[in-house]
C-alpha cells in the first residue's frame, strides 16, 4: 500500500494504474477526474439518456475499483480497461433496449425499428479523439483544431498564427502521430 494522499495529478497513466491496483483510493479519485467525463459522454451519446449515462459511469468506476486486482497492465492501459468496462455496460443496456423493442414490435406489429446509427466502438474512438485533440498543447493542438474543425488550409493557419508554413505542417504531423499512439493506448484492451 502506498502512502496515502500522494498527489497523483501529475502522475503518468501507468503510475496511476499501479496505485489504482494497489488499492490507493486517491487513485480512484484521480482516475475519475481524468476519465469520468469521457465515460459519461460516451454513455450519454450511446444511450441518449443522462440518467443512464450517470448510472453507467458510476457502475464503471465502482466495478473497476471492486475488480482492481484483476487489472493487468500487460493487457492494456487503465483508461483502456475503464473504457472496456464501459463498452460492456453500454452494450448490455443497448441489448436490453433492443429486446424491449422487439417485444413492442411483436405486440404492435410495427416493422420500423430505429437502428443504431454507429457502432459503439467507433463512437468511443471518436469521443476519445475529441478529448485527446482538446488536450493537445499549443501550438500543435491549435493547429490541428483549426485544420480539422475549422477546415483551414495550412497556409491560412500559418498566416493566422504568424508561423512559418513548414513549422505548421510539422506540428500537424506530430499532433497526428501523437493522436494515433494515444488512441491505440487508450482504446486497446484485449478482451
Amino acid at each position, binding site marked *: 500500500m502506498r502512502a496515502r494522499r500522494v498527489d497523483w495529478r501529475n502522475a503518468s497513466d501507468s503510475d496511476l494504474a499501479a496505485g489504482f491496483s494497489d488499492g490507493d483510493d486517491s487513485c480512484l479519485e484521480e482516475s475519475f477526474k481524468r476519465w469520468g467525463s469521457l465515460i459519461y459522454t460516451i454513455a450519454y451519446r450511446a444511450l441518449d439518456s*443522462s440518467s443512464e449515462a*450517470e*448510472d453507467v459511469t458510476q457502475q464503471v468506476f465502482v466495478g473497476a*475499483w471492486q475488480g482492481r486486482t484483476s487489472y493487468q497492465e500487460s493487457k492494456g492501459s487503465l483508461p483502456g480497461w475503464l473504457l472496456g468496462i464501459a463498452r460492456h455496460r453500454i452494450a448490455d443496456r443497448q441489448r436490453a433496449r433492443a429486446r424491449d423493442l422487439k417485444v413492442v414490435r411483436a405486440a404492435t406489429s410495427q416493422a420500423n425499428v430505429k437502428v443504431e446509427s454507429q457502432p459503439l466502438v*467507433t463512437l468511443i474512438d471518436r469521443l476519445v479523439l475529441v478529448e485527446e485533440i*482538446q488536450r493537445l498543447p499549443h501550438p500543435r493542438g491549435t493547429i490541428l483544431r483549426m485544420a480539422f*474543425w475549422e477546415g483551414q488550409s495550412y497556409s491560412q493557419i500559418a498566416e493566422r498564427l504568424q508561423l512559418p508554413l513548414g513549422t505548421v505542417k510539422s506540428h500537424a504531423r*506530430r499532433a*497526428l502521430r501523437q493522436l494515433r499512439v494515444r*488512441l491505440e493506448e487508450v482504446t486497446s484492451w484485449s478482451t
Partner: protein
Amino acid sequence: MVHVNSALLAGHALGQDDALDAADQQHLASCSHCRAELDQYRRVVTLGQGTQASETPTPPLDRIWRSIQAELAPPSATEEIAATKTMMADSAPPVTANDRPASDVPRNDETANDKPLSVVAASDETTDAGGEKPIPGRRRKWWPIVAAAAALGLVVGAGATVIINRNDVQVAASTPLTALPGQTGHGTAELLRTPNDPELRVSVDGPQPADRYREVWLINSDGQRMYSLGVLPESGTGTYPLPTLLANGLDGFTIVDVSIEPYDGNPAHSRNSQVRGSLPE
C-alpha cells in the same frame, strides 16, 4: 528495406501533398507495413475531422462521484444503513441493492399482481432487528444457509395461510412461484419468522440448466431496487436470512425472483428469470 518516415506518412494522411516524394510513393505501393500505418493515420483524420465538441450536457461529476463514494463506503454497518436510508428516501439509484435496477428485469405482471395472501402476525415472538448480519449489497456474505427445512415437506397452496410450528419457526406469508414465459418450473417462497431474523425459504421444482446456477432475489415493487439473497443450491431449496433493513417488514421488497445465471463473474441479475412470485406486503 527503408520504410517511409512516420512523420511523412502522417503528413500525407493530413493532405500535405508535398509530404511524399516519388521514391516514397513507390515504396508505399509495395510495402504493406507502411500502408497499414498510413491507414491508421487516415482513420484518425477521418474520425477527428468528423468530430466536433458536441451538444453533450455537462456531466454531473460531483453527483456521480458522491454516488461512487457512497457505494464504496467502508462496510461499517451503521454508516451504510444510514446512507441507504437516506438514498432510499431520495429515491436515488440503487446503490446498496446491488447491480441493476429491477426495471431491467423482464416483467411478469401476472405474477406481480398475484392474489393477496394474508400475513399471520408473529405470535409472541419479536424479531430481532439488531442482528449482526452483513449489510446488503455485499453479496459474497449472502451465500445461503442451506435449509434443513425441506425435510418438512410442506405444501402451501396459493392463497393459503399456514402456520407450521417447527420449534420456533412460523410461516408468516407465502407465495407460489410460477414459471416465466418460456421457462418451466414452479415452487414456493415462504417468509419465516424465527426467534432471530426473518428468513425466506425458497423451494423450486424445476430444472437447473447445465452450466448455469440459480440465484434468489428480492425485488421491490417500485421496480427500482433489488437484493440478491444468494445462490439457490442445486437441490432447489434454500433458506436465506433477510437483509437487516427488512427485518421489520418487507418495505416493498415483495417480489421473489429466481434467476438463471451464467458463470460470467457479473454479479448483476442476468435478466433471465425462471420463476417468480409476490409476497403480501
